[in-house]
């Protein structure tokens, strides 16, 4: 119970201290990383759907980094192939997300 309270306090602290993107604040243009903090907080709360809506590339990115660490420790035989494919997948998601945000949410 105490752990849960600490966890909730931590998430609330993260929410209160979100750094706003300088681009978005002053120039009205979103950068390719905008939404990552919101998405991360939603993921910590356990809301996978909201997290993917806020920033779709966060989940594959976390998978890629954890797989990278695991690959460096355990040296999987086809690990390089998985990393390459997931990297290209993440890049495609980031680029499409950025273009979509520019076209439909640029204010």
């Amino acid at each position, binding site marked *: 119970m105490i752990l849960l309270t600490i966890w909730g306090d931590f998430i609330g602290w993260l929410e209160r201290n979100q750094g706003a993107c300088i681009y978005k604040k002053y120039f009205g243009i979103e950068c390719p990383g905008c939404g990552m903090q919101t998405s991360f907080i939603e993921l910590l709360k356990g809301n996978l759907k909201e997290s993917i809506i806020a920033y779709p590339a966060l989940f594959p990115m976390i998978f890629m*980094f954890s797989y990278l660490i695991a690959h460096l420790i355990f040296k999987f035989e086809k690990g390089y192939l998985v990393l390459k494919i997931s990297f290209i997948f993440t890049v495609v998601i980031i680029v499409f997300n950025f273009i979509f945000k520019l076209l439909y949410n640029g204010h």
Partner: protein
Amino acid sequence: MDTNTPPNANQFGQQNYGPTGNMPYMLEPVPNSTAVLVLGIISIATCWCYGIVGVILSIIALVMSGSARKAYNASPGKYSPGSYNNLKAGRICAIIGLSLSVLYMIFIILYFFALFTVLSPGMMDVFDNFNSFSY
């Protein structure tokens, strides 16, 4: 012993396997292969800082992978194939990250040129806001 056996084979023509069973024995990893892979992958995760960090990281990764490829091509039998695969994957990731970061930087520069030429009176307000933050 015939001449067709690979360089690290024993008298029965089999590969020598190390204590882990998986990798041929006595092969060292290609220098910097791990660093190239890590840098190449991190270069895309820093897309939120103007693309500059991505450019720096991927250029470092490309330079390191260039020298590592030279070392591998000089003596391919000396290094383990797994680490060479890591090196190739890291190189591809670095190339993709570099091209995307450069494209993003070009886009940002073009956008600011457009903003300066079209909205130059409005930009002054932005600079006023910036000055209010320097205490």
